[in-house]
């Protein structure tokens, strides 16, 4: 059902865990569809210095989040927002059709974390003013 590349990443997903000092957190999905992804970032000067994730879900969900975090680590937030599910799928060599939504969810998880960061920044700005 899954190709070898997917299984390889599933065995050793990258950037798993929580992130102390994270200033951005995104959460997408729900347990009804079977997948919940959380992405945590440390963003300094618009650059994603570090990123970690936790995922409840199938292998496709776990590998999609792993690949997404690798794609954005060290990138600016604008660059990170350019990441698409197609890029994730290309790196994975494809996912079974019913699992493609997992790659979309990973793309949305990045957006969700960056939106959270921007909200926090706005809040800080307001407080400073």
């Amino acid at each position, binding site marked *: *059902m*899954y190709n070898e590349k997917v*299984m390889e990443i*599933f*065995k050793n*997903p990258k950037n*798993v*865990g929580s992130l102390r000092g994270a200033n951005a957190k995104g*959460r997408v999905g*729900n*347990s*009804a*569809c*079977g*997948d*919940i*992804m*959380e992405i945590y970032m440390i963003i300094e000067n618009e650059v994603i210095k570090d990123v970690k994730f*936790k*995922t*409840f*879900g*199938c*292998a496709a*969900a*776990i590998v999609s989040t792993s690949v997404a975090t690798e794609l954005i680590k060290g990138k600016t937030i604008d660059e990170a927002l350019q990441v698409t599910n197609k890029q994730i799928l290309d790196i994975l060599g494809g996912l*079974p059709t*019913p699992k493609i*939504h997992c790659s979309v969810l990973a793309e949305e998880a990045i957006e969700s974390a960056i939106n959270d960061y921007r909200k926090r920044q706005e809040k800080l700005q307001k407080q400073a003013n």
Partner: protein
Amino acid sequence: METTNKKVYLDYAATTYVNNEVLTEMLPNFSGSYGNASSLHGFGRDANAVIETARERIAKAINCAPNEIYFTSGGTEANNWAIIGLAEANKFKGNHIITSAIEHHSILDACKELEKRGFKVTYLPVDEYGLIRFDKLLDAIDKDTILISIMAANNEIGTIQHLQAIAQTAKEKGIIFHTDAVQAFGNFAIDVQKLGIDSLSLSAHKIYGPKGIGCLYVKRSVPIKALINGGNQEYGKRAGTVNVPAAAGFGKAVQIALRDMSVNVQKIRAMREYFIKQLKENIEDIQINGHPNQKLQSIVSVSFEFIEGESILLMLDMQGIAVSTGSACTSGSLQASHVLKAIGLNDEIAQGTIRFSFGKGTSKDDIDYTVEKLKVVVEKLRSMSPLTKRRKKVNV
């Protein structure tokens, strides 16, 4: 974790290996008695004799007449045929069918097809253990009800229904009663006359027989529409050359299942109890689904909180351990199992459910190895899950 060469099969409810005695019974019929059982000559008569022996063995096992057994390509075909064939042949009496929410898809999807044809179908709810709600059954029966189909035992959680009570209720109301006994057969005695069952489905590959053959029992007095037209095979109800080696194997498998039933059930019960004990001692935050007593000993449905079933399955597979999420027929679908939802599990718990099913080949070593690996897999996945935090907060 590294991958391994060790193999542990804990998916007997999906299918079983073919027993040696069964294989021995089948082999001479591939190139020996290879005649077409419908032919009049000696080759045909030999093949026909093999089929009739198999039919007699199956009939004897469920206490019906041999001419009430129709061979099919398997349990799915038998279930499809029972629902559609019985409904179509009896629609002059009414257009209402009652089944349960936890049936196999071969029943549920056949019922959906009947709905398209204008029949009305009631899907009975079940309680937390998977037993059908009797009050709801009585409420559902009306003057148009022509067929009730309730599975003997569930393939995902193992719960055994009160067959006799359901059959008697149907009988009193003059309604045909069918039961899907594919998963149940070989676990307890099923006497169709004593229980009052009008129709019953069986499959060979769940009882150490070959894949590709099953049968439908239909009581002689109950009309059923032919499934396949094109010949006189199976009393003109299911045309097509009968698979002689498979029928021979099926008959033998049924005979052995009954012969060894009490030994098998006792052995498997011991394995099950040992497994559950080890599981509870080694892994926290789990729940065992289904009825505590009234269930197949061979199936253990376990929900692991905070993690998802497919990931568990794949990581166990890397260790050579074969299990299922829900049932093999629904894996690959995104929806949580309809059975687990029907017994009231929330999505998160349902998604984290694994079916372990034991059989004749299961050893204590298999269970020790499985629990050892399971502990590591569950810990690893929980460390990756955003839901696990909740538990830690509660504990602190």
